[in-house]
């Protein structure tokens, strides 16, 4: 098979010396994490805290420096050649490391004790109490978005849409998903994430959570109000006007991590038609399931436990285990270097499913295809983290309107012919196909 010929190309991908230095520093950061884990973290929290932070930041910055080299532009050279980004041994190593971390975090947090203690000084400062595993997790999560966000901004500095969008996810993660919840705890108020809503944070509309919030007074009322308004009013309106991107690639923390830390892996998403089928068979049932569960729980609490008794509660528990922990964490993030960054967003997230339905059927958002300028090169499809075969639309002169599109804009950035543009225009005619004037006249 001659299809094989060009696959036989051996790996010419040599990393830049600076990239190597950066990788070494990051490896040292990981090593410090391990050392901290085995005890020393407890005795010298300050030292380890700063060691890990400095190594991570300097490592990432140095790793990103080659992206600064030369004029700004799309810098995907060698992505398909390097082990780190081409499912090589390094990629597998990282996947195992992250997956292992999630397993410990969810089920054996006591094994992470050394590392958790490293976070105590910061936790005391922000929350006024000692750190737990979730604070530690939140810290690393935020750190990852910030440092890799920096790298992303450097890489796409010539596209303002990318720069602004990334500043936005960095801001929401740091402020809304890390600092504000910590301060709330310091003030003895309920921990609340203003940037997560039902159905992603499904418990926010569960009777139990609502009950707890009510009992904490005015601020609790405000939180319930906020959550309900965001889910039932703001979400449909914003999605109508801007598409699901306003959330998925501007605000959401899961999306934020995928966009920043997951950027080197976006080409690994599966573009096959089969994958699209699997996607639809997973994500919509999950949305249906969480909706039913929510309704059941309310009916149940309204009837004082008369309907289905504890079953709906058990339902919710299982959902939390399989979807919340295993899917969104272990597989969703752990498998970044193998399956790409948006596995959870694409196959599992009920919020994405809901936003997607609105985006597909009732929205002004579309990715416009510019006439017949597409040369079918495939860059757009390759780098679409949601596995959308963008080229299939572009080469026919059709606009890309897909439920799963998170509006990251990468397809438009990597297109070497400037064929694609994300935009919000009139709803009418958004499915219309480009026709050459010569053909229209007949």
């Amino acid at each position, binding site marked *: *098979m*001659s*299809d094989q*010929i*060009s*696959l*036989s*190309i*051996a790996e*010419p*991908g040599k990393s830049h010396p600076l990239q190597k230095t950066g990788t070494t520093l990051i490896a040292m950061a990981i090593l410090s994490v391990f050392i901290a884990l085995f005890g020393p973290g407890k005795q010298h929290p300050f030292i380890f805290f700063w060691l890990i932070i400095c190594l991570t930041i300097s490592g990432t910055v140095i790793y990103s420096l080659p992206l600064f080299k*030369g*004029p*700004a*532009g*799309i810098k*995907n*050279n*060698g*992505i*398909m*050649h*390097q082990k780190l980004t081409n499912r090589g041994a390094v990629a597998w190593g990282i996947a195992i490391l992250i997956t292992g971390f999630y397993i410990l975090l969810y089920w054996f947090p006591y094994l992470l004790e050394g590392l958790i203690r490293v976070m105590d000084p910061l936790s005391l400062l922000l929350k006024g109490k000692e750190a737990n595993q979730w604070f530690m997790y939140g810290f690393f999560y935020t750190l990852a978005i910030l440092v890799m966000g920096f790298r992303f901004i450097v890489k796409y500095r*010539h*596209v*303002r*849409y990318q720069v*602004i969008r990334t500043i936005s996810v960095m801001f929401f993660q740091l402020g809304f998903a890390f600092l504000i919840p910590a301060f709330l705890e310091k003030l003895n108020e309920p921990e609340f994430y203003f940037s997560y809503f039902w159905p992603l944070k499904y418990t926010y509309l569960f009777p139990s959570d609502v009950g707890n919030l009510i009992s904490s007074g005015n601020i609790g009322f405000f939180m319930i109000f906020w959550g309900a308004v965001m889910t039932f009013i703001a979400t449909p309106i914003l999605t109508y006007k801007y598409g699901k991107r306003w959330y998925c690639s501007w605000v959401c923390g899961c999306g934020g991590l995928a966009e920043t830390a997951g950027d080197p892996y976006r080409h690994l998403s599966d573009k*096959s*038609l089969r994958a699209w089928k699997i996607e639809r068979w997973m994500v919509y049932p999950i949305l249906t399931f969480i909706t039913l569960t929510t309704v059941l729980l309310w009916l149940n609490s309204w009837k004082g436990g008369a309907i289905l008794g504890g079953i709906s509660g058990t339902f919710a528990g299982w959902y939390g285990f399989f979807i919340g922990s295993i899917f969104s964490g272990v597989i969703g993030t752990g498998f970044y270097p193998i399956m790409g960054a948006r596995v959870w967003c694409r196959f599992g997230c009920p919020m994405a499913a809901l936003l997607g339905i609105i985006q597909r059927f009732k929205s002004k958002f579309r990715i*416009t295809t*510019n*006439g*017949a*300028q597409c*040369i*079918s*090169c*495939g*860059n757009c*499809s*390759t780098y679409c983290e949601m596995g959308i075969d963008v*080229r*299939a639309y572009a*080469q026919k002169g059709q606009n890309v309107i897909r439920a799963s599109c998170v509006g990251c*804009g990468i397809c*438009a*950035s*990597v297109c*070497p*012919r*400037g064929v694609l*543009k*994300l*935009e919000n225009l009139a709803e009418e005619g958004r499915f219309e196909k*480009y026709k*050459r*004037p*010569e053909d229209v006249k007949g």
Partner: protein
Amino acid sequence: MHIVVIGNGITGITCALNIRKLDPGSEITVVSSESEHFFSRTALMYIYMGHMKYEHTKPYEDWFWKKNRITLIHSHVNFIGAEFKVVNLENGRMLHYSKLVIASGSVPNRFGWPGQDLQGVQGLYSLQNLNEMEINTRGIREAVVVGGGLIGIEMAEMLTSRNIKVHLLVREKNYWSNILPEEEARLINRHICEHHINLLLETELKEIISDEFGKVKSIITSHENSIDCQFVGLAVGVKPNIDLLNNSGIESNRGILVNEYLETNIPQVYAAGDCAEFKYPELNDPPVEQLWYTGKMQAEALAKTICGQKTAYRRGTWFNSAKFLDIEYQTYGRMTASLDENQGTFYWENRGGKKSFRVTFNKQDRSLVGFNLLGLRFRQALAEEWIINKKPVDQCIIELAKGWFDPEFSKLFTKDIQNKFLSDTNLKLAV
């Protein structure tokens, strides 16, 4: 009806797919020797640079062909027996056809330079060339690319991505200056240098020198300068691939001669895409069109003709696009390197010297001729509408923002452009 298509490039495949749509009952066979499946030739450079792998360049998944009942034969056509309506394949098979479409593409030009057959000297057109290039450039330090056109700059970019020092030989005064007006060409000159590519203008290749193993060691330029290099990329254009015509009775000149319906001199035999040459091209249209877009449009027209809706191919409003390293290029309308005496032109460049906008118009009625854009994007549908309707240039400039296609939040340069237009032409815009 059995339709045989030779060549699975954009032309052959577009033709086959459109025939399938128009005529669900016909039998379609595509014979091609380069690759088993259709891939995008325009993406060859990205495979070398590691942006994509070969499989990413295939616009359709492999199951697609069977599902659409298009038979793919991975073989070479050695001979066309037009008398008996058969083609002979390299593997000994013979295919009967009711209608034959020849879409055999191009081959790179070579101009008989001394040393052009040495190891390490090659053109870039096919997948096989790409593999050669992979082998020929492994571990080398310096390379020469000959040719100041689209493939030349792509080869230079490819090599640069592997940290190979490139010397780019351009015969003309500026890069691609037979197409680009001087200002645009100079902008690209500067950008090439910014990438540390050694741009040698008004320089031609004279001779390629071998080392003791038959590999390229250096070249000598038309100025008698010697440049050390371990690789020479020849990117001096392509010519129609018409080897398969020998003794078939199908008429050819540079390419396979066709009329506006893409019919050759032999009934039921058609040719389209890079390999075809129009016998009677329309005024200002080139007889041989070697573009992705034209191959696609010719194939669409041809599919209709084959399925009984006789359709002449019309080039229509000219458009094209390319990317010179980091700078995108779009053009609409018939934009030439030098102006017609009846034409006026307006050029704007941003302060950084990496974006430019040009509009050309007819002086008499000020009607729009077309746009050239570098580093900027513009809506094709609108540009075409304006060009066809001969919209006055002044009105176009006023409404420029309507056609802007740069990503959201990008700086809108239309105000700058309008201001410069006003001061250059001493006109008042009737806003």
